[in-house]
């Protein structure tokens, strides 16, 4: 008897379709063969399930509800779990933490860079101004390239005033904030004491006055001074106005405009303006 014949035999027994003789033979085998009982139980249960309409309906109902839930989840409507095995949340938390730290580091780096570039612009301005007015290098030797020449003077200064101006030029390159303020006070006193002499060198006086104001961070006053110096020193005033705007918060676009006008024409500060624009564009 092959497997299929045996299955049919069991099926006939369960349906009561065997003859008495066959039935006796069947029960004999049931008693003697251990696996035969298991095979009968399986077919018995299978027959019961196939005939049980309630079970079949329930099975379909469960399947349909779960199918709907899963399709809703796939469409993103219901936050139910995925069909994959469990996700290790520690990995996600770790990844999130690392991403956060990386973002923080990047932010810090760019801020630092930005600060550095801002410092670079200020340092460059100071350097240009020192070259112009400080007239001193790191060894303290003195040059006088920017000092107003005698030819530029419209009238001779009194000896006293000339000597004091000489001293002021000498100190301006190495001066600290307090010293610039002190120089400005001295210049103001000088203006009051010997206004005639100052008036004779009015553009030079106000250019120097403006530069010390600029050094001291008083950009508004510096810009006023530069306006008074403009007739005799148009290119210098243009350049220092640009530097004054650069040092003034919110006035960068004005500064860039002036620098561009210097950089694109023949101008005594053309190279400096180009250098400064390059630094600004990298910010």
């Amino acid at each position, binding site marked *: 008897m092959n497997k299929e014949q045996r299955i049919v035999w069991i*099926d006939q027994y369960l349906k009561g379709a065997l003859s008495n003789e066959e039935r006796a033979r069947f029960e004999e085998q049931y008693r003697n063969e251990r696996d035969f*009982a298991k095979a009968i139980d399986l077919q018995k249960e299978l027959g019961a399930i196939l005939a049980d309409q309630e*079970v079949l309906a329930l099975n379909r109902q469960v399947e349909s509800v779960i199918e709907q839930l899963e399709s809703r989840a796939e469409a993103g409507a219901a936050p139910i779990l995925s069909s994959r095995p469990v996700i290790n949340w520690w990995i996600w938390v770790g990844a999130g933490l690392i991403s956060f730290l990386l973002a923080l580091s990047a932010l810090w780096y760019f801020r630092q860079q930005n600060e550095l570039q801002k410092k670079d612009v200020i340092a460059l301005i100071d350097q240009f101004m020192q070259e112009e007015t400080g007239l001193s290098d790191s060894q303290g030797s003195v040059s006088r390239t920017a000092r107003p020449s005698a030819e530029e003077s419209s009238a001779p200064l009194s000896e006293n005033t000339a000597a004091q101006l000489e001293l002021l030029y000498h100190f301006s390159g190495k001066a600290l904030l307090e010293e610039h303020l002190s120089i400005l006070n001295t210049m103001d006193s000088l203006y009051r004491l010997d206004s005639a002499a100052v008036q004779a060198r009015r553009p030079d006086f106000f250019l120097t006055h403006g530069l010390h104001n600029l050094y001291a961070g008083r950009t508004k006053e510096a810009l006023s001074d530069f306006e008074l110096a403009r007739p005799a020193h148009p290119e210098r005033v243009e350049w220092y106005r640009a530097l004054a705007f650069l040092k003034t918060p919110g006035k960068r676009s004005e500064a860039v405009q002036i620098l561009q006008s210097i950089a694109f024409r023949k101008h005594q500060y053309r190279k400096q303006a180009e250098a400064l624009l390059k630094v600004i564009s990298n910010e």
Partner: protein
Amino acid sequence: MPTEDPLYPVTANDELQALLEGNGPALSKAIESCYLEARAHLKANNGTSEEAQDLVQEAVLVALKRAREGRLALTSPLGAYLAGICKNLWRHRLREKKRMGTVTNEFFLEYTPGGKSWQEQEEEEWRLAARQNLYLKKLKVLRGSCKKLLELDANGLDLKTIGKILGYTYGYTRRKKGKCLSKLIEMIQSDPIYKEISHSSDLKS
């Protein structure tokens, strides 16, 4: 019939009725909450959605059997009750896999044990539900005509009538039935789960 009307909330009896009838919104709601709980529980135990679906199918079969035998007295919503069975079924499965420890089961307290111990009785119940679920799963894989033939046969129709319904001759219907039944049993027996949940090999009197 269960209703969603807030003036007439779904009662335990409605749910039980829905379970026995195999339809209704109350049953769908219960299945949904049971499935979600089963999935959450399985998530915490490295299970999959397929296992959760199996657990729900088996829990429903267990609940139906208890309801038919008058052993199901719902003191909580059907969904929570089914979820409780799912949890215990899962623990039972884990224990079967690990072959260690004992399973704590609050549902043991629901009925008076017969000749067998509570554990034996419940294990038998769970094994039966798992086998029934396996049969249903394999039945779905079977070809439509085979499935129809076996269902008609199980419902007590004679082969001549079945042949007429399906448009076969008597001889062909008889041969086809043998082949379909044989195929279905072969699929069931070759499933690795069957060995774990098959009947005890003790001889029956």
